[in-house]
């Protein structure tokens, strides 16, 4: 029986078109079309490869076919996608469909790559469907004629909403939608997302407006197979380092037996290393494999992506740079080197192989140390139960807000009251107070609430009629150049002395090298010749080079995955365990059981190990390196309150170590005391340096809010007198304007992101409910050894600053990076 909707002309035309192509609509697509036709906004939840694009896009087409009188000339569907690279292909697919259906609509892309000619034409006459990124949408809002562009807009679709949701780009999207919604109340807003933990919240963030809204979930599921790669033998003591290089030889046949493979690593340095190792292990790969990460020249990256689509490459070693983006049809194998860090990321990477709806995505998991095999078991469990992480939406990002306010002031101005309402209507700023709003207005009009000399400040000017507008051309230009929230490190180009461009490397890495030193980039060993004006000149070299260790390469282990890890480890100790990974690890598990203990799910293991070197205190919260860093500092601080003692610290994703050459005396009672939940955050604040952490966080905030002019290559000259590092501005604001909201935001971000306050509190709650198992040992246990090996030493002492400085007179002075001028 056909329902009423299925009898409409629009539906009939589309259904017939699909039939002609040998396709039938999925249930979720039909549901979306129907809901859309009834005026709903909403969110489509579907795995990649099942035609989620066609759910929302065709919904608009069907609506048009059914009631063309409601549509007028101009832009009808605005399609926001987080990825530039996706836009072209999507536009092509949409245009093809439209042509076949027989409409005269045009589909166009607008982003940084768009030809200026086309851009100008778009400004005069918008296409029927426009694909943009959040950044280009904001740039459109910064145009004088912005109201003309959107007059006939019916629908805003946000593709890959899960990718935007947890980031400041999500806030940009929210603000832009709220602005457009305030102008055109009838707009329908549709999101498209993969499965995440907090779908209801995701919908509320995207569509916080009253009116009918719905979630459409595809029943189809992507089949996923996780195949762990077992090392030749299990080693009681795991191998050192993070490279997992001994498993390269096992990866080679996987690549040889596949059509095309993506090898995912977690850091750029690891990818450089694996690329080298693969070439050494199988020299015939030369010319057939490539390296892809964000420091590689974008032209080379595009060439690699193109070659991968055309099946010309046997394998690509990549970082998260290839997590997202267009499908590479020939890719039938994915290899993950080392921890996947989160269930969502792991599934996403697996999904890069086997694209068509009913193919299976296969992912091989190569552990970098034996224990990581537990993670394979944990991931399988998480994938089986589809326990995917939440994406926590960003709120109260004042840096994004002030940027947006200037954007709107630039594109024809605004009235403070009406913009206030628009901002308050978003999820991100639903709790903004009157004072905070006033502060933001003051920030862009008078340069802040602190200090005299207001008349010197020129950004947004209040017109006699109350309109807030940007008057100066130069301010407008500066602002347009800096719209966006993706802050990159100051990058330096790397070029051969003979000409030819290799890629980009962070300035701070290069500034530590001296001429003649060698480093690796883009799979080559390069010798630094000289640095001149943001360009490093190099020549090809051979031998060993330093691999740049890029900051921020460390992804946190998700709390989801860590829960499964604890669970699997506990199961490993039980007789009759089923998981092949855990059975394989049996010698190691038995060793841990013999010398110490395997913690059950309701236990918390602490090991005190006395060796010739000194005293080691190990704890295993399994909360990921970031949380462990904070916990280690906290526990060290609490012990040093009991009696004076200095520690050095080491940690990995599973646990942490406090090391001291003097005896660590800790009774069971005292242990409970240092693991207590009482005064948790106060002690955390005393044990770490929040100011220093906030200073780091302020870097992005300063750029986004326009306080630091980004050092873009080729343009920095014009703005040289406006260059200043975020660190200096942070220092100045701390001294002169401590109540600055952007400064406060930096501290909030430290607590939410760096210290992961919620997670830390939850971890201590769990520990307080657990039985604490306190074991002594005289040798390293299988659990402790990787931490020992992986040690990134940090030493803590609870002395005051002046004493510290005294102490430093004789000790570790390291060259730092340059921030001048």
């Amino acid at each position: 029986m056909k329902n009423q909707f299925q009898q409409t002309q629009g539906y009939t035309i589309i259904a017939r078109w699909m039939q002609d192509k040998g396709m039938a609509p999925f249930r979720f697509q039909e549901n979306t079309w129907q809901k859309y036709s009834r005026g709903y906004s909403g969110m489509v939840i579907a795995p990649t490869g099942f035609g989620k694009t066609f759910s929302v896009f065709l919904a608009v087409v069907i609506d048009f076919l059914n009631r063309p009188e409601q549509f007028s000339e101009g832009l009808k569907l605005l399609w926001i996608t987080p990825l530039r690279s996706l836009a072209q292909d999507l536009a092509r697919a949409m245009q093809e469909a439209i042509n076949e259906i027989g409409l005269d609509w045009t589909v166009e892309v607008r982003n940084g790559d768009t030809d200026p000619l086309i851009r100008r034409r778009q400004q005069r006459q918008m296409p029927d469907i426009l694909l943009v990124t959040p950044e280009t949408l904001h740039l459109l809002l910064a145009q004088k004629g912005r109201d003309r562009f959107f007059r006939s807009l019916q629908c805003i679709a946000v593709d890959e909403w899960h990718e935007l949701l947890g980031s400041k780009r999500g806030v940009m999207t929210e603000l832009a939608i709220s602005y457009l919604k305030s102008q055109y109340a009838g707009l329908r807003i549709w999101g498209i997302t993969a499965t995440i933990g907090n779908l209801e919240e995701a919908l509320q963030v995207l569509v916080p407006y009253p009116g009918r809204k719905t979630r459409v979930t595809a029943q189809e599921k992507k089949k996923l197979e996780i195949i762990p790669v077992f090392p030749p033998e299990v080693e009681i003591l795991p191998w050192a380092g993070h490279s997992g290089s001994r498993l390269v030889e096992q990866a080679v046949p996987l690549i040889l037996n596949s059509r095309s493979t993506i090898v995912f690593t977690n850091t750029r340095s690891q990818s450089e290393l694996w690329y080298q190792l693969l070439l050494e292990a199988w020299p015939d790969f030369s010319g057939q494999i490539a390296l892809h990460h964000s420091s590689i020249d974008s032209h080379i990256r595009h060439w690699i992506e193109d070659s991968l689509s055309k099946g010309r490459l046997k394998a690509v070693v990549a970082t998260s740079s290839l997590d997202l983006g267009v499908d590479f049809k020939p890719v039938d194998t994915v290899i993950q080197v080392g921890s996947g860090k989160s269930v969502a990321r792991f599934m996403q990477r697996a999904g890069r192989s086997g694209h068509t709806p009913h193919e299976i995505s296969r992912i091989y998991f190569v552990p970098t140390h034996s224990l990581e095999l537990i993670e394979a078991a944990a991931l399988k469990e998480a994938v089986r139960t589809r326990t995917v992480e939440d994406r926590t939406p960003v709120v109260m990002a004042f840096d994004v807000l002030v940027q947006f306010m200037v954007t709107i002031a630039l594109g024809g101005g605004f009235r403070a009251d009406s913009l206030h309402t628009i901002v308050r209507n978003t999820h991100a700023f639903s709790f903004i107070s009157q004072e905070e709003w006033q502060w933001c207005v003051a920030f862009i009009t008078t340069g802040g609430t602190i200090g005299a000399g207001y008349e010197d400040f020129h950004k947004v000017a209040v017109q006699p009629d109350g309109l807030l507008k940007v008057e100066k051309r130069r301010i407008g230009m500066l602002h347009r150049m800096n719209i966006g929230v993706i802050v990159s490190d100051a990058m330096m180009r790397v070029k051969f002395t003979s000409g030819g461009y290799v890629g980009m490397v962070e300035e701070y890495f290069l500034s530590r090298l001296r001429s003649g030193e060698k480093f690796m980039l883009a799979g080559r060993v390069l010798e630094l010749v000289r640095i001149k004006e943001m360009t490093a000149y190099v020549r090809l070299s051979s031998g060993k080079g330093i691999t740049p260790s890029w900051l921020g390469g460390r992804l946190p282990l998700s709390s989801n995955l860590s829960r499964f890890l604890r669970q699997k480890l506990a199961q490993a100790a039980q007789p009759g365990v089923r998981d092949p990974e855990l059975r394989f690890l049996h010698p190691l598990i038995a060793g841990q059981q013999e010398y110490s203990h395997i913690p059950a799910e309701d236990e918390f293991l602490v090991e005190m190990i006395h060796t010739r070197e000194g005293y080691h205190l190990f704890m295993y919260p399994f909360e990921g390196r970031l949380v462990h860093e904070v916990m280690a500092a906290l526990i060290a601080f609490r012990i040093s309150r009991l009696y004076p003692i200095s520690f050095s610290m080491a940690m990995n994703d599973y646990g942490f170590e406090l090391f001291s050459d003097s005896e660590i005396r800790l009774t069971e009672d005292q242990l409970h005391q240092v693991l207590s939940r009482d005064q948790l955050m106060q002690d955390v604040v005393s044990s770490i340096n929040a100011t220093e952490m906030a200073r780091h966080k302020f870097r992005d905030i300063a750029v986004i809010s326009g306080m630091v002019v980004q050092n873009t290559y080729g343009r920095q000259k014009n703005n040289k007198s406006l260059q200043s590092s975020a660190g200096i501005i942070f220092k100045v604001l701390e001294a002169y304007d401590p109540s600055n909201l952007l400064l406060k935001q930096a501290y909030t971000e430290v607590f939410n992101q760096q210290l992961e306050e919620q997670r830390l509190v939850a971890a201590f709650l769990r520990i307080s409910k657990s039985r604490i198992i306190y074991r002594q040992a005289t040798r390293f246990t299988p659990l402790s050894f990787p931490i020992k090996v992986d040690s990134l030493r940090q030493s803590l002492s609870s002395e005051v600053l002046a004493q510290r400085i005294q102490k430093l007179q004789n000790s570790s002075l390291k060259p730092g990076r340059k921030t001048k001028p």
Partner: protein
Amino acid sequence: MNITEQTIIFAGEPLLLTNQGVLFWEKQQALVLSDLHLGKAAHFRQNGIAIPSRLAADDLEKLGRLIGHYQSRTVIITGDLFHAGSNKETDLLTTLTKGHPGTGFVLIRGNHDRLPAAQLHSLGINAIYRQLKINDISFTHLPAIEPDSFTICGHLHPGVAVQVPPYRTLRLPCYVVTPRQIILPAFSRFTGLDTRPVMPPATRYAFYEDGFIAIPET
């Protein structure tokens, strides 16, 4: 203001390095400093970057107190007195120069000092040079790789980064002292630091509120 001093012998002369970013040449009653970057905050503000505007006044006030403390007859600024063109902040200099009529203000022009001489004079600068030599010591703005005479200069904003575990890098301004050259720290608070390693032999005298740390490079 807790002034601490460190005496060094340079070109056979005893010179006082202070933890306030100024060097005092006792025999000449001369206060030497560099890179004041007056007008920087105002220049930023004019371009829509909301830097608190009290910075410059504070820097100048501090300089005034130092002139008083050392009873200096001459103030030598080895370049980058001004950050950009003239603005309200640069005018503040007049207050300082008028307040110390017995003190001569000498500017060694730096790459940032683009104001015409007449305007500099009207702000109270008594003499302007590209390079100045007093006895055996030359004053320039730019450091030289191999100076051919004893030189005091600025420009680089030298500093050191000291790792203080955990999570901490202290960044302190410093003087770079080599057998033939002294590179002065930037006097302004609103400037960055160049913490790259220096070529030996050199000693970096880093300073903070209560004293000095000497870091020799041999």
